[in-house]
């Protein structure tokens, strides 16, 4: 696979990393790398080891085996911290500070000019609430404030832990717009999530963690191909031809005029030819590729024969 970490442009290089909690290994032999400008979705159920992996990359928790390099620096050392930014899963800022004051504190800690803060709050849609105390913010607003601090000082590596969990669909969309902008500016972005949605699928690669082990890492297309999940073909028969269509194609007759077939990707064209050969007996055809949910379930549940 082309995921080998040879190229010099790697912002993040995780090699054979292991984390133990007591006698249990919560992260097992995980290797991944991230280039500048690349977006990686890290998927897994709760407890799969996503947060632990992110905390190891940040240097917040010890690594029990393997190695992590953040653009050539050890996790958590001064240089690594300067180029990395982090959005924790649940951001609990201090209630008594205003959004702007909280962001200004982060700017000072990061060595960035404080007047960068207001434009960032505008960018995440918080300019009206900038002077209000964080205690009055909704969960979505706190998440936006968290995102604003991620953008401080144009990080070269951004680690976002379940960033969209409290957001409504429109905010999610805005959020991924910002992620795209960051990537376009050369930031390597790692987004963890416990579900594969349309938005996560827009990242360049998808890594799936199951019980601490990396079970898949590839582009969405390749994951689809490797999973070999069946494609659903829904055929609508013209009036009075349902029996004929079902008889010649096989498959399940759903109701008066619908027939459902399933086939693997390489049989798709052959099946479609057979359908078009029926001529006017067929009124309509829908081809439904395996859903993201199916795909995610396939890898996360361990059906991949690895």
């Amino acid at each position, binding site marked *: 696979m082309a995921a080998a970490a040879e190229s010099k442009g790697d912002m993040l290089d995780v090699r054979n990393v292991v984390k133990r909690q007591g006698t249990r290994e919560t992260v097992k032999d995980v290797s991944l790398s991230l280039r500048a400008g690349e977006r990686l979705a890290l998927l897994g159920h709760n407890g799969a080891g996503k947060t632990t992996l992110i905390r190891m990359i940040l240097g917040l928790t010890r690594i029990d085996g393997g190695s992590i390099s953040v653009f050539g620096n050890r996790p958590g050392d001064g240089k690594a911290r300067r180029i990395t930014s982090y959005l924790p899963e*649940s951001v609990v800022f201090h209630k008594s500070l205003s959004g702007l004051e909280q962001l200004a*504190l982060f700017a000072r800690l990061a060595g960035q000019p404080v007047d960068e803060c207001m434009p960032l709050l505008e960018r995440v849609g918080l300019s009206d609430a900038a002077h209000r105390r964080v205690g009055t913010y909704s969960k979505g607003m706190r998440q936006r404030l968290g995102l604003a601090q991620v953008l401080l000082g144009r990080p070269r590596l951004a680690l976002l832990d379940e960033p969209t969990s409290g957001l409504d669909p429109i905010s999610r969309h805005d959020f991924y717009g910002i992620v795209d902008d960051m990537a376009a500016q050369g930031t390597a972005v790692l987004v963890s999530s416990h579900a594969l949605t349309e938005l996560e699928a827009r990242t360049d690669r998808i890594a799936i963690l199951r019980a601490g082990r990396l079970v898949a890492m590839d582009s969405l297309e390749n994951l689809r191909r490797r999973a070999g999940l069946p494609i659903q073909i829904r055929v609508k028969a013209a009036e009075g031809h349902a029996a004929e269509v079902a008889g010649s194609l096989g498959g399940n007759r759903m109701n008066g005029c619908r027939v459902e077939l399933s086939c693997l990707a390489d049989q798709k064209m052959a099946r479609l030819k057979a359908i078009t050969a029926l001529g006017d007996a067929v009124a309509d055809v829908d081809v439904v590729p395996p859903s993201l949910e199916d795909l995610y379930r396939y890898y996360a549940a361990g059906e991949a024969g690895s």
Partner: protein
Amino acid sequence: MMRRIFAIAGAELRIALRNRWILIATSLMVLFSLALTFSGSAPTGALGVDLLTVSVASMTTLSVYLVPLLALLMSFDAIAGEVERGALALVLTYPVSRGELLVGKLVSHLVVLSLAVFLGFGIAGLAAWLAGGASGESLAALLRLCWSAVVLGASFLAIGYALSSVARSSSAAAGLAIGVWILFVVLYDLGLLGALVYDGGGFFTRKLFPLLLAANPADAFRIFNLSGAGKVALASGLAGATTGLPTWAVLISMFGWPLAVLALARLALKRVEP
């Protein structure tokens, strides 16, 4: 480095102001000091000292209890609370060291404590002066009380940070803080008293007792203020208890405690996984 320390101290001060911590600590000190000054005004005539001198003696006794309590209340949550909220993890992904974080918090808490102490004792001192007179000597004693109370506070702030770093949760840190407070300001003295009675004027009483007394920062503070100025000592009746105790021992205890415990807190904080 200074920029980051001031950034943290500034934010903490803002929080203390909005949490009403500054207001609560200051009004507590003002109220107690005023109450003690006027309720303890009886012995002035008998001892031939002015009201401010008596007031300083009473306020010293008050500080021994109140200042450590305020300091521990401010500091017990400083680390454990931030770990619980997940805030420490985020802050530590910024290029700020744990030492800078600790010093930033210390600076802000010392400012709050100084405000409470100087305002509280200042107002009570002013009232005593107006009501019963003061002298150069008693004013010096008041000033000495104020700054040494801040130094005492620093010891207990540092103890609070250390406990907060060791404790697994904010509530556990609160429990530890209360335990430490009782140990230092109540049980320690009771223990020494018991030993004195048992010893009956032997080696312990003459040699060990004064040093053990000075080893406790709260007692060192008491000795420093009550036996330091002659007239305050007279007003407090502590003059005899600490004869033979060198001043350097008291000073080492007063300044050694905050520095040593702060170093300890720094070590404990190093081991914290946010």
